[in-house]
């Protein structure tokens, strides 16, 4: 038995070595940096240890802005994208004609480059010398006043960022949910039909419970993904996110490391650990909720 154990570990060794060097060691390092005040990469020195980095980060207005932005983004986009994806997936499952065409259309954002998508959004939303952007044209058409979505008020910029995020994460969710819907046995729907079950009840009592494992999977990965948002904001508002009030947590960490005001690995590490704790907490809550409500053994 013991010999077998040893053999098992031997087989695992290559993977463990790589994980150790590229994941576990850096993780521990980040933890250490976050407690070392004013750590310097070049000289490998620091001024002392303690909670100072955390205190600094938590009092930094840019960090608080990024925290607020990220939370708004998470709270709006995750439910919205999952819900809309479910609606689209249901619609896709219920049509026969042109289904494949629509599936391809809905999947396109997934294979499109983030920055290219950003460009398209510029055309839609950005004010230039020649035009106010497509969306503003529409608003004008219905008698509204132009809004500067890219350099304008905070809510307008947030709106664009949310629409962008929802749009970009949707294809994957649609894909997963169409698969989940297709895996629900047709006999269950037939049985429900024979028993004259109203459509809404079929949805809430049969469809939803049957695909609940997939929905929770999407919510959990959706939360994690939204907390890690960064490139979307860059694609829309450029690299100076702090100035645009549109920074995210990951953006803040990046700026602290490499940005124009960068070079503070200690602050970056502290911010990264705060992000880690937030994601961990939310994921744990999610798992706890899902244990109670997800249907097992389907």
């Amino acid at each position, binding site marked *: 038995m013991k010999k077998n154990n040893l053999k098992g570990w031997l087989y695992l060794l290559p993977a463990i070595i790589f994980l150790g060097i590229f994941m576990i060691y850096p993780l521990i390092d980040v933890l250490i940096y976050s407690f070392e005040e004013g750590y310097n990469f070049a000289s490998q020195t620091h001024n002392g240890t303690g909670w100072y980095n955390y205190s600094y980060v938590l009092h930094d207005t840019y960090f608080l802005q990024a925290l607020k932005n990220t939370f708004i983004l998470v709270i709006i986009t995750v439910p919205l994208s999952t819900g809309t994806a479910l609606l689209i997936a249901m619609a896709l499952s219920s049509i026969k004609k042109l289904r494949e065409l629509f599936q391809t259309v809905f999947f396109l954002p997934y294979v499109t480059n983030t920055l290219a998508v950003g460009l398209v959004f510029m055309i839609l939303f950005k004010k230039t010398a020649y035009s106010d952007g497509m969306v503003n044209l529409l608003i004008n058409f219905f008698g509204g006043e132009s809004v500067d979505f890219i350099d304008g008020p905070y809510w307008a910029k947030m709106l664009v960022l949310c629409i962008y995020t929802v749009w970009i994460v949707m294809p994957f969710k649609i894909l997963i949910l169409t698969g989940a819907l297709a895996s629900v046995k047709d006999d269950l729907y*037939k049985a429900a039909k*024979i*028993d*004259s*079950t109203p459509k809404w*009840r079929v949805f809430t*009592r049969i469809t939803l*419970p049957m695909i609940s494992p997939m929905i929770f999977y999407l919510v959990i990965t959706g939360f994690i993904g939204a907390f890690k948002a960064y490139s979307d904001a860059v694609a829309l508002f450029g690299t100076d996110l702090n100035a645009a009030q549109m920074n995210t947590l990951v953006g803040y960490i990046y700026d602290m490391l490499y940005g124009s005001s960068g070079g503070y690995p200690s602050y970056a590490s502290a911010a990264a650990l705060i992000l880690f704790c937030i994601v961990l907490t939310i994921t744990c809550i999610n798992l706890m909720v899902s244990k109670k409500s997800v*249907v097992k*053994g389907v």
Partner: protein
Amino acid sequence: MKVVLDKLTKRFPNRNKKIKTEVTAVDNFCFEIPDGTLVGLLGPSGCGKSTTLNLISGLEKPTEGRVFFGDTDVTDMAPEDRGVGLVFQNYALYPHLTVQQNIMFPLQNFRGERKLTKEVMLEKTLEAAKLVQIDGLMERKPNELSGGQQQRVAIARALVKAPKVLLLDEPLSNLDARLRLQTREEIRRIQRETKVTTIFVTHDQEEAMSISDLIVVMKDGRVHQIGKPQEVYDDPANLFVAKFLGTPPINVFKGRVKKHMIYIGDNAILKAEKAEDGDVYVGIRPEGFIPDEKGELEVSLKGLEVMGRDTTIVSDHKDCENVEIRSIVSAETRIDTAAGSIRFKVKPAKTHIFDAESGERIYY
């Protein structure tokens, strides 16, 4: 509630779209199912029996013909308005609901005047569960039940709303042999107790024969014979029906009628006063052979299978269509296995002749 099928026909477009011809799944099905009977739709797979069931339930719309429940024409009614209970082949229980919730599900769908209070629903649920004897398992989920128990839950769910007609699609095919025997008796008992008109589909002739009041033998969408099981067995309308019913199957020989005698090979086995001369198939039931030294039919003996209660004589004849001839005789019969051949007398009631071309029964 009696069920009347009037010239019911269902044609499906061909899968291969290049072929314009349609596939006829059910062809001109006329049948009146008396109130409170248990009817078995019997036939090989692909014969249209499940389609017939779906036409009755309303899950499929007939191409032609009408379906009546009592005097009401339900052909254009949606399945949910017909008031049928349907038990699916794989039960189609809702996996996330408990047994109780599964059975109660149809009741919770009642709207308007039929809407029930929670107490009445629970009462009816318990009643249905007791009927199928699963009232001790109410809190279980379907995946915690055995196949037989799941089957019972499915039947209870179909019965709880007091359907006019109960439909069962291959109800026993997912059960093991022992459970199958038990469950078919159970279905019979439940049907007797509820007196609901029940139609079930099966490809197992033994199943259909053992519990049905009436059986309908189908092949290629056409009804070949309808009748009480024993009548259909004793008096098959054609070669297909004769071959399909009975285990071991009927022994079929190539034969002919000449001068009012039925011949197998050179042996004239029976008189046939009314039959015309010509080639025929001769079908003899396994129980239709009597070993007799002066018997008319001589076959080469291959062996004996002793069952205790009776004995199967396995033999061979050059004109036999089956792999071997199996004849069942009583266990007391002494048979000399060393002899190369054996002679039989045949019982006229157990011997049928069929037209060699059409397979239709010839009465002699």
